[in-house]
C-alpha cells in the first residue's frame, strides 16, 4: 500500500472547477457598486427558498446569527429556556445564552441527533423552544419533536447548519419546523468564502421581523422600528452561493455515494452511520465509531489520512457550561460517542481511489490489531 496524503477537507478543487463562473460573479457584483443587500442577495434568497421548499429565505452574517436572530425574533430572552442537543458545535448552545435565555441540554441517540424521548423530561414552565440539530447532515427525528413541541406549545427551530439539501420523509430540512438556521461557512456542503448564513421559514410575520432585525431594525433609511442587529450575508458571498447552489445536489449525491462506499467496506470493523428509509443524510461529516479511536486516528495519520473528531467534548462538559449544572455522566451516550467517534474525509472531490485507500487503511489497522 503506497502512502497517499489525503487532507480532511479540500476546497481548492471545487474553486478551480468553478473559477470562471466565480470570477465573473465577483466582477459583476463588484461593478454593481452594491456590496450590502441589493438585487444579488435577493436573487440568491429566492433561489434558496425555492430549493428548501419554503416561502422565505433570509441571508444573514453566519449560521450562529441565523439561530440567534430567530430566537430574538421569537422574543426569547432572560428567564426562558431552550432545549438542544449536547453533542453539537458549541454555537447551538451559545446562541441561546446570547439571548439571555438558558440552554437546556439533552442526550443524543445513535444517529448523533437529539433523542426525542428524552426531551419531555427536560421541558419546564420556562421552556420556549426546541432546537434540534441535524448533525453531520442527518435530519433529527422531526415528527416526534414537532409532536412534543405542539403538545407543549413550544417553537421548533432547526439547526440545519450542517444539513442543507438533506431530506426527511421527502421534505427538505429548513422546512421542518417554524424556522431554520443554515451556515454557509466555507467548510459546509454549500459554503461561501467567508462567514455567511441563511434563515428559512414559511411564517410571513417572522420573516418580516427577521428582515428588519438583521438590518439595524430599520423600517426605511431614516426610521428605526426596533433597535436591531447588523447581520447580513455579504452580497458578494450571495453571488458565490447562488452559483454553488446550482451544484449542491450533485455534490450532496457524491457525498452520499462516498458514504455508501465507506459503509460497505467498513461495517465489519467499526460502527458506521446509515440512513433510515425516511431520510437522506447529506454527510457533511461521515462519523464512524470504534473503541480503538485514538489508535486508529494515529494510524490513519501515519498513513497520510487526516481525520477529525466532531466533537471531542460534549457541550455540557465544556468550561463554558460549568454554570448549567451538568457533570460527567449527565449524558452517557454523548460522552461515550465523544470518546469513540472519528470523522473520515468526505467531500465531492474525494476520488474513488482515495476512498478505497482510506478503507484499506482502516481495514489493515484492524487486521494488524487482530494479529497482535
Amino acid at each position, binding site marked *: 500500500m503506497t502512502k497517499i496524503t489525503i487532507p480532511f477537507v479540500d476546497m*481548492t478543487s471545487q*474553486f*478551480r472547477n468553478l473559477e470562471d463562473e466565480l*470570477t465573473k460573479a*465577483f466582477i459583476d457584483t*463588484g461593478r*454593481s*457598486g*452594491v*456590496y*450590502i*443587500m*441589493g438585487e444579488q*442577495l*435577493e436573487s440568491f*434568497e429566492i433561489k434558496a*427558498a425555492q430549493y428548501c421548499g419554503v*416561502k*422565505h*429565505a433570509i441571508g444573514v*452574517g*453566519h449560521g*450562529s446569527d441565523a439561530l440567534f436572530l430567530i430566537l430574538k425574533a421569537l422574543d426569547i430572552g432572560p428567564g426562558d429556556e431552550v432545549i438542544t442537543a449536547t453533542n453539537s458545535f*458549541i*454555537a447551538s448552545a*451559545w446562541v441561546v445564552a*446570547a439571548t*439571555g435565555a438558558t440552554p437546556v441540554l439533552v442526550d443524543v441517540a445513535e444517529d448523533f441527533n437529539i433523542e426525542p424521548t428524552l426531551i419531555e423530561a427536560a421541558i419546564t414552565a420556562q421552556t420556549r423552544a426546541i432546537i434540534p440539530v441535524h448533525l453531520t447532515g442527518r435530519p433529527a427525528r422531526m415528527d416526534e419533536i414537532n409532536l412534543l413541541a405542539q403538545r407543549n406549545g413550544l417553537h421548533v427551530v432547526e439547526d440545519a447548519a450542517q444539513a442543507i439539501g438533506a431530506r426527511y420523509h421527502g421534505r427538505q430540512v429548513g422546512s421542518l419546523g417554524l424556522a431554520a438556521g443554515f451556515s454557509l*461557512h*466555507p467548510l459546509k456542503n454549500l459554503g461561501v*468564502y*467567508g*462567514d455567511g448564513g441563511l434563515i428559512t421559514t414559511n411564517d*410571513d410575520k417572522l*420573516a418580516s421581523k427577521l*428582515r428588519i432585525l438583521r438590518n*439595524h*431594525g*430599520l*423600517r*426605511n*433609511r*431614516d*426610521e*428605526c*422600528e*426596533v*433597535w*436591531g*442587529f*447588523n447581520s*447580513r450575508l*455579504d*452580497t458578494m458571498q450571495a453571488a458565490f452561493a447562488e452559483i454553488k447552489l446550482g451544484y449542491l445536489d450533485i455534490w450532496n449525491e457524491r457525498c452520499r455515494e462516498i458514504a455508501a462506499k465507506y459503509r460497505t467496506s467498513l461495517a465489519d470493523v467499526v460502527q458506521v452511520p446509515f440512513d433510515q428509509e425516511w431520510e437522506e443524510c447529506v454527510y457533511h461529516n461521515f462519523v464512524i465509531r470504534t473503541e480503538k479511536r485514538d489508535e486508529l486516528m494515529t494510524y490513519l495519520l501515519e498513513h497520510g489520512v487526516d481525520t477529525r*473528531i466532531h466533537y*471531542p*467534548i460534549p457541550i455540557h462538559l465544556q*468550561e*463554558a*457550561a460549568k454554570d448549567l449544572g451538568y457533570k460527567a455522566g449527565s449524558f452517557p451516550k454523548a460522552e461515550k460517542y465523544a470518546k469513540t467517534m472519528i470523522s473520515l474525509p468526505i467531500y465531492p472531490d474525494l476520488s474513488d481511489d482515495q476512498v478505497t485507500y482510506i478503507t484499506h487503511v482502516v481495514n489493515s489497522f484492524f487486521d494488524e490489531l487482530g494479529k497482535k
Partner: protein
Amino acid sequence: MATTKNFLPEQYRQSNKLGINHNYLNEQFSDHEVIWTKMREVVIRGDFTLGSEVDILEKEYAQISGTSHAIGVGSGTDAIFLSLKALGVGEGDEVITTAFTFYATIGAIVTAGAKPVFCDIREDYNIDPSEIEAKITPATKVILPVHWSGKPCDMDAIVEVAQKYNLAIVGDACHAIGASYKSRTAGSLGTLACFSFHPLKNLNVWGDGGIITTNSDELADKLRLMRNHGLVGRDECHTFAYNSRLDTIQAVVARHLLGKINHITESRVAHADYFDKELRSVSQIIIPKRDADIYQVYHIYSICCQRRNELQNYLIENGVDAKVHYPIPMHLQPAANYLGHEKGDFPIAETIADSTISLPVHEFISREQQDHVIKLIKDFYD
C-alpha cells in the same frame, strides 16, 4: 412564492441619474484585479476563518492607530457590541451616548442588554461633554462618544468625567479612521475604539467588516475569545460567546486600501476645505466649527442650511447625490418609544437633524464637480 423584498437603504444605492455620487465603489473597483489575485490565494490556501491576512491587517492597523492591539470583527456594530460585552455590560446597566448618531450605536447598546442614556450635541454634531455628568447614575458603566462624521469628540472633557466616576470609554470611531485629537489617533482615545469597514467608509471592504483597537492586553484577549465562539483551540469552549470575524478575503481588500488611506483621507480633507471656503460666504449656510487641534477626516461632509429639504431636492434634480445623515435623532425614533423621550429633549440634535445636509467629498470627486455643486447651491439661494 417567496416574497423576498429586501429593504435597501438609500446610501448603498448608486443612481445612474446622478453625476455626482456618494457611492464611489465603481471607481474603486477598477483596482479589482490585484485584489482578486490575492483573494484567490486565500481561497486556494483555504485560509478563510481568521486567516493570515487578518493577522497582518490587525498588526498594521494597531500600528497606525498607535495601540497595542487591533481585533478584526464582523462589522462596526459588532465592534461596539463586543466592546461593551468585553467590559461586562449587560442587563440593568446604562451607557451614556449621543442622541445624534447612526442606529447601530444604539442597537449595539441595547443588544448588550443595557439602556442607552442620551446627551445632546454641540454645533459640531458631537456629544456635549458638559451634559454627561448629570446623566451618570449608579447603573452607568460606559461613556460611548461617537466621533461623528470623522471628527473626534472633545475627549479631554470626556476623559475627565470618565476618570472622576471610574467609567470606561468606548469610542464609536466607525466614521473616524485616520482622524486624530491633539495628535492622538481616534483608535487610542478611550478604553476601546470601534471602527467600521462598511463599503462606504473611508477605509472599506466589499462587505461588512469592522475592527476594535485597545491598549488593554486583557480586553484584547477577551475580545479574541468572544469573536470566535469562546473557543480556545479547536475543541475547548471557555465561555459562551459570539461569532463575529472579519472575513479573510475582506482583510485583503482592507490591506490594499490601507496602503492608500493617506491619499483617501487627504483628498477628503482637501475637498471639505474647499467646500468650507467656497460656501462660508453663503448666508443661508452654517459651516460647523472646525478645531485646529482636531484632524477630522470627513467620512461625511455635513453643513447646516436653510430650506434643507428644498435644497436637497434641487441638488438631486440637478444630478448631485445630496443626503441627510440623519433626519431623525435617536430619541425620536420609533424604537426609542420605551425610553419616554419627547421632542424638545435634545434641542441641538433636533435642530441639526432638521437642517443638516451632506455633500460628496470622496477621493474620486473632481474640482469641477465641486464647483458645479457650489454653483448649484448659490443659484438655489439666489
